């Protein structure tokens, strides 16, 4: 379709925003409600439980701390990737976006070791409610990491062709993908202390 949709790239004067920016924030709002529901479930189940294990009973705090650092770092490299595009340095974008994706991969690898260690010890979602909410919350979060990596991967790879024809549009896409990635980081910032440290 070559019909022009207004304000896809340029901002609409009265709102000061383009369509994609509003779209991604609306999506993030819905994600806040999704994770909110799971956090609400955690609160309701924990308050209603006669006893509740501390995270350290089952979970590996050092590994999770490492994962926290990995995710925070990937958020910074995401910002740098976008900033590189604004300064029209495509190869630096490639570098930082690549690191961001690798950090995501690192996060998942650590998660893999965490999960397999749990299973090895006979700790499954079915074992008790704590483990159930742990696996569900971190599992859903992990799916979002994968999703974010997929979009970032697309923008690093085939999607980057847009840089040549419409660099501003491409920069905006990277920015919007970055917003999603930061939300993934933000959710983890809450997940980590709630599940592991309390």
């Amino acid at each position, binding site marked *: 379709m070559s019909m022009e949709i207004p304000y896809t790239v*340029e*901002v609409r004067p009265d*709102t*000061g*925003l*383009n369509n994609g*920016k*509003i779209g991604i*924030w*609306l999506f993030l*709002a819905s994600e*806040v*409600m999704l994770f*909110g*529901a799971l*956090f*609400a479930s955690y*609160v*309701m189940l924990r*308050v*209603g439980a006669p006893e509740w294990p501390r995270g*350290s009973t089952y979970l590996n*705090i050092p590994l999770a*701390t490492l994962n*926290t*650092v990995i995710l*925070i*770092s990937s*958020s*910074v490299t*995401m*910002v*740098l990737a976008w*900033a590189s*595009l*604004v*300064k*029209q340095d495509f190869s630096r974008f490639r570098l930082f976006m690549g690191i961001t994706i690798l950090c995501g991969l690192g996060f998942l690898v650590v998660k893999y070791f965490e999960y397999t260690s749990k299973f090895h010890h006979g700790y499954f979602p079915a074992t008790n409610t704590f483990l159930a909410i742990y696996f569900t919350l971190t599992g859903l979060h992990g799916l979002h990491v994968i999703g974010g990596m997929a979009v970032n991967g697309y923008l690093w790879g085939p999607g980057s062709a847009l840089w040549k024809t419409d*660099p*501003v549009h491409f*920069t*905006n896409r990277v*920015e919007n993908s*970055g*917003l999603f990635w*930061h*939300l993934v*980081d*933000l959710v983890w*910032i*809450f997940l*980590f*202390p*709630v599940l592991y*440290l*309390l």
Partner: protein
Amino acid sequence: MSESHDPKDAHAGHSHADVDRHVRAAYFVFGSLLVLTAFTVGAYFLHLPMRAAIALALLIATVKGTLVAAWFMHLVSERTLIYWVLGLTAVLFLPLLLLPTFTVLDGIVLR
């Protein structure tokens, strides 16, 4: 964020100077986040009573989250519309988080 009207410089309204400032802010936030992560883990070793531990953990997480939202997600310099959307979301998030637990706590008492 200064509005640049030169089409060649029109990368969503950011000039190069803006971006450099932004990147510096991002590094500062990065450092803060690492420090705060250390605090979070350190607080664990304080072995506080549960209520205090929860409050402290959530406080630190909120500060970290605010830093990410404000600088990584550019919310410090975002448009009013986005603030409204997020404000609405925050207002609706609270009943979702709290009311189900309140109904469980406020049970029928048989006398």
